[in-house]
Each structure stands twice: as C-alpha cells, then as structure tokens.
C-alpha cells in the first residue's frame, strides 16, 4: 500500500505543481523518479518530524499541498501538538501518509505500533482521517485528497493486502460504502478489517445469518447518516478495527447508536485492541489473533448477540 501511495504522490505531483513530497528519513530510492524529474517537489528532511509537520504548514499557507510520509506513529504521537495547532487550527492542506497503521510493525514492538492514531486524530477539529482497505481504494481516495480543505491523515496498511474494495462502487471521501446487505446484523469495519468483516459475513451467511458490511474508510468526517440508516433496521451491530477500543471506530459508532436511542435497544459489540500495549512480537496477523480481531471471533460475537436480541429475525 505504501508503494502505491508514493506512486500516487508522484502521479499528482506531475499534474499539480502545488504537490510537494516530504519524507523524514526513508529508504534510499524513495520516489527517485520524482526527485530526478521534479526536484523542487521532493524533500527529505531527516528525523525531525515535528519540524517537518510545522514547516509543511508554512508551505501550505503559501499555497503548496505537502504530502508527508513516515511511520504512522511518529507522525501522530510525536507530532500531536504540531498537528493540532499548525494543521488543525490553521486548517492547512497538509497530508500525512502514515506507514504501518495498526499492528503492521508487530516485529518491531510497541514503539512502532500505531494503535491509537485514529483516536488521537479524531479529537482534532478540521482533520480528515482515511483508512483504506487496500491499495486500489487507497489510490482512489488519495486522488481526491488534492481537493480536501484542511489536513488529511491517510492510514496505510501493510502492503500486498488482498483487494476487497470494489471498482463498481463509488468511493468518495466522507461516504461510507455498503459492501454487503444483511437483515440480521451489521458489521461496521475500517481499514484492512474490511476483509475480515467480509469473511465473517460470508461465514455467517453459511449459517443462515444475513450480515451487512459497512466500510468506513473515512473516520472523520464520519458518515453518521449512513451508519444510522444501516444500523436502524438490524438488531445486532458489530464494529471491527485494528486499533485501540478507546476512541476509534467502535467508540464513534457507539456514540451514534447511544444517541439515536433505538427502541428496542440494539445489541452492540466492538472488536479491536484492548487497553494494553501489545506484549508480543510476531506478525500483524498473530497480534490480530491475540486480540481476537478475526473473522471467527466476529462470527461468534454476532451469533451470541443475536441470541440475546429480542427482535432477532434468525431464531
């Protein structure tokens, strides 16, 4: 996904002189074509993320559209105040491309895991947060970022993620995508959890349970109307994210459901990372298993919720 995102920056930079790429200390051949062809649109500024974010805000106030890339957690945690004040408050058109969102850097340990990036950035006014499901969707969303007012964060997955997004469906920043219909349950997913949710929905179908899947690639501004509309007819709602349960997609959906005051009440659960620092290395997949971010756990959870729901269609 990272390679596609950088290629997309190159593609946009060729068309639009406002686009400037800024890396911190990336691999030696990063965007070498851009550097060779358009040297004024390529900057590599060293391990100084806080300065880079504010400097990018300065460039943006002068009319540039900087795309900054480095490891997601170094952008979001380290530069939080720069993001809040110099991007959010100034409403600057700076784009943060966060490599390794979620548990991607499992072997590198908790210093490198971006498990709270969405929660952190949801609190920043004027911010747009994107978590595409795969490289194809990322490309479609990235092309739209040129026109977004204010800062944008793009959460990248591991790369080589199976393509589950659909070219036949519209993909627009701020609009959730109904990937699958189902009258018994709704699974709301973001990022690469879309593939897990689709897998769970397919398994549920085999067991006679119709589970819809709503893909929320834009976490901010959240498509509240669509989430409400799709949640309203089903008795059971499940959220899935590769992110801490404190403040991410699950929290956002819970807020919508709680405030909607559905009667009878919905049965609702969140799947995500609990309030811990991951204590194992391994791989993204092994950590997702450790925290039950799996299709089989989603299936079990939906089935359990259906059993307790007074209005379930599938008894």
């Amino acid at each position, binding site marked *: 996904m990272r390679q596609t995102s950088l290629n997309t920056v190159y593609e946009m930079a060729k068309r639009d002189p406002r686009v*400037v790429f800024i890396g911190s200390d990336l691999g030696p051949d990063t965007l070498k074509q851009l550097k060779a062809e358009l040297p*004024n649109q390529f900057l590599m*500024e*060293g391990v*100084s993320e*806080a*300065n880079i*974010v*504010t*400097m*990018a*805000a*300065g*460039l*943006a*106030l*002068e*009319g*540039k559209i900087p795309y900054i890339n480095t490891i997601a957690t170094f952008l979001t945690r380290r530069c939080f*105040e*720069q993001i809040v*004040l*110099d991007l959010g*408050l*100034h409403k600057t058109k700076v784009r943060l491309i966060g490599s390794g969102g979620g548990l991607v850097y499992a072997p590198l340990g908790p210093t490198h895991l971006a498990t709270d990036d969405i929660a952190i950035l949801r609190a920043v006014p004027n911010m747009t947060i994107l978590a595409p499901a795969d490289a194809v969707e990322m490309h479609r969303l990235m092309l739209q970022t040129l026109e977004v007012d204010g800062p944008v964060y793009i959460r990248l997955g591991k790369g080589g993620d199976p393509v589950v997004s659909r070219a036949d469906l519209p993909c627009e920043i701020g609009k959730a995508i109904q990937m699958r219909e189902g009258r018994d349950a709704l699974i709301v997913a973001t990022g690469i959890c879309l593939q897990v949710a689709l897998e769970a929905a397919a398994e549920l179908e085999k067991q006679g349970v119709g589970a819809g899947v709503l893909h929320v690639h834009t976490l901010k501004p959240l498509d509240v109307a669509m989430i409400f509309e799709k949640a309203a007819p089903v008795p059971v709602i499940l959220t899935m994210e590769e992110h801490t349960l404190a403040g991410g997609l699950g929290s956002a959906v819970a807020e919508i459901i709680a405030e909607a005051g559905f009667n009878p009440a919905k049965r609702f659960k969140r799947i995500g990372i609990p309030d811990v620092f991951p204590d194992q290395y391994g791989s993204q997949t092994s950590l997702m298993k450790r925290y039950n971010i799996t299709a089989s756990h989603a299936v079990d959870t939906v089935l359990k919720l259906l059993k307790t729901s007074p209005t379930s269609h599938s008894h």
Partner: protein
Amino acid sequence: MLTASGRGHVGAAFSIVEILRVLYDDVLKYDAKNPRWPDRDRFILSKGHGCLALYAVLADKGFFPEAELAKFCASDGILGGHPEYGKVPGVEASTGSLGHGFSMGVGFALNAKLDGHKHRVFIVLGDGECSEGTIWEAALCASKHQLDHLTVIIDYNKQQTYGTIAEVQDLEPFAAKWEAFGFSVCEVNGHDVAALKNTLAAVPFTAHKPTAIICHTIKGKGVSFTERNLSWHHKTRVSAAEASSLLAALATE
C-alpha cells in the same frame, strides 16, 4: 489593553518593543491595507506571549483600528492573549505554544526559495523558547536549505517564568550554538534603536547562510518597577491603580 483585560505578558512585551518598532519602521516590506500582499516580508512572533507589543505596533501601522486594542482578550475582540492567524490582520501564524513559529517561518522561506520569490522572513524567538527541541530542528533545516532570506531575532532577556535562563536551562554559549548550527550570528543591544537598524539593514551577513541576531534585552524594559521583575512576566488581575502607574511611568521614564 491591560486596563481592558486586567492581564497580559507585560515583561515579555516590553523587552521586544524596540525590535518590533525597528522592524515595522525600517525593515519589513508590507502594506497594512493589503496584509496578504504576496510580495510582503513575512514576520512571525514565535514568542506569541509578547503580543501586547505586536498589537500596539500593528494598530499604529494601520493593520486594524486602534479601538481594537481596548478589546484585548474580550469575547468580541480579535486580539487574544496570543496572536491568531486569520483573526488579526498582519499576523502570519498563530503562536502561543512555544517552538512552532520558527518551523513555520522555515516553511515560508523554503516556499519562497522553491518558487523564486524575493520576499524575506523574520522571526522573533524568546530565549526561554530556545529550550524547545523544535527550535534546533528548524535551525538545522534552515541551514541545510541555505535560507539566507530568513532571520531569527532572539529576545535574550535572560529571564523566564521561574527564574533566570542561566538557572532554569542555560543557553550559553548561545552565539556559538547558532554558529555551530550554520547561522551567521550577530549580537546587539536589543533596546538600541540605531544599532538594531544597522544590524537588520545588513542581513544576510553571509550569502547562503540564515541569520541569527541575538538581542540582549531587559525583561520589562522601560518602567522601573517592571524591569527584571518576574511578577510582571504574566500579570493577571492588574488593578486600575497598577495600570495607571504603568501608564504614568511610561509617560515620564
């Protein structure tokens, strides 16, 4: 402004009065009636808490009506306890949290260089602010890009909130640090208008190098009871009597 709000960073404003006066009288190119004029020189008060001095100068130059000064920190005013971009004509960046304005100015200056514009960038830093790591990240970056159209002016009044700079977090050898980071450095009495004019007229001192001007100043300069008096760093509940004695002192001293 003090009378209106009963508060303000008085000491931090008084130490930069001459610096701002010289910048806006003799150095910066600007059009107060068209504050976004593309060819203007950019100025950032990175030590945003010194904004009382900036507001007075901007009003005097006609960026906004002087009546705004009486609404300092009022809910319907544009002049807050720290200057805000988008609210105050002439303010290029919202500052207040220290260690941001320099990097922002590097962005402005880098943009000018990339696009071949001729305008310059001036940034006033506080000395206490120079404890922030981002100051030195920005210094490395300005030097790497050879931003000789960028000048940082450091208000070295040697005092911060808790006590002296020397006891809280010593900056010495200060000039040597800037030199080591690739700046052309000059030290000047920050209250000597003629010296400031000469120094600022001479930037850049060296082609391809950004400039650092270390201004030796006195916190609270100009009034006997505010000079070097830490209780005037950020004064709240300024009484009518204190405000009028300040005004009287300014009129006579």
